[in-house]
């Protein structure tokens, strides 16, 4: 089997993220110190989740138009992978918060929004598992995923920016400049996002193939 080019790209970008992420210069900022390097690992988890969930949403909408079971399988497996990355983002954020803000969790719009987002997607998975009929399950969960994605945007992109937040990039002043993302960090940060996202898609792709095999097995 020859590895597809985008899987090789994922490996290369992740290796680059680790090497460049630790060895390049970063801005010297109070409180953050070296932990600013978490940008390449914690923040990218959330970017990955948002991108993967977008793919899940697109395939959900595609299903509504096509009624093809394949589209529903892709929507389900990408959503599951996205949830894993979301959980990793939440845990790593909690560790980072403990050593910069002094607490594992603070009652902050961004943090609570992230937790609420995960709950919305847990509900998506529970909804899926609670409906026996596969066509009904696909249709209802596709409609729900439109709602889920909209809620995610509200919870982690809009609400935190309307209030004050400890988390960088919020409090009415969004954008990368607020966390002093200088150009040396950009050349690691952007490839890191692509690398982690491709890894997530790789995992999702394998899960989709296993899912299809299982369906075929059931048919026999």
């Amino acid at each position, binding site marked *: 089997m020859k*590895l597809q080019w985008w899987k090789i790209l994922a490996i290369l970008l992740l290796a680059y993220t680790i*090497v460049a992420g630790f*060895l390049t210069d970063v801005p010297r*900022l109070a409180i953050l*110190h*070296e932990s600013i390097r978490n940008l390449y690992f914690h923040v990218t988890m959330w970017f990955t989740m948002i991108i993967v969930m977008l793919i899940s949403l697109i395939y959900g909408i595609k299903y509504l138009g096509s009624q093809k079971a394949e589209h529903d399988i892709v929507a389900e497996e990408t959503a599951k992978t996205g949830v894993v990355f979301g959980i990793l983002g939440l845990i790593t954020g909690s560790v980072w918060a403990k050593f910069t803000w002094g607490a594992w969790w603070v009652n902050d719009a961004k943090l609570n929004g992230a937790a609420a987002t995960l709950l919305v997607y847990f509900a998506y998975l529970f909804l899926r598992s609670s409906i026996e009929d596969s066509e009904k399950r696909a249709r209802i969960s596709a409609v729900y995923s439109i709602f889920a994605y909209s809620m995610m945007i509200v919870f982690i992109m809009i609400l935190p920016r309307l209030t004050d937040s400890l988390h960088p990039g919020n409090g009415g002043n969004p954008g990368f400049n607020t966390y002093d993302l200088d150009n040396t960090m950009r050349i690691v940060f952007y490839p890191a996002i692509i690398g982690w996202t491709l890894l997530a898609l790789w995992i999702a792709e394998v899960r989709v193939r296993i899912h299809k*095999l299982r369906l075929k097995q059931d048919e026999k």
Partner: protein
Amino acid sequence: MKNIHKFFLFFSAIVFSSLPAFAEQEEIEMADQLRSSGKIYIVVAVLLIILIGLIIFMIQIDRKVSRLEKKNQNNS
């Protein structure tokens, strides 16, 4: 005269010895020593090993699924 000379030496010794301390307060603490002594490379090496291990695992899973898919196509 000799005493003044000694006093000047003593005074300058105090001033200069305290200068690095002031400079240190201004600086933000980073893992400079870790990096200058080369030990950050150990962390990078460890993480690369973990990444390589996980990737190999991932490739194996990928291949296993490919084999199953082939088997399935032959059967049907």
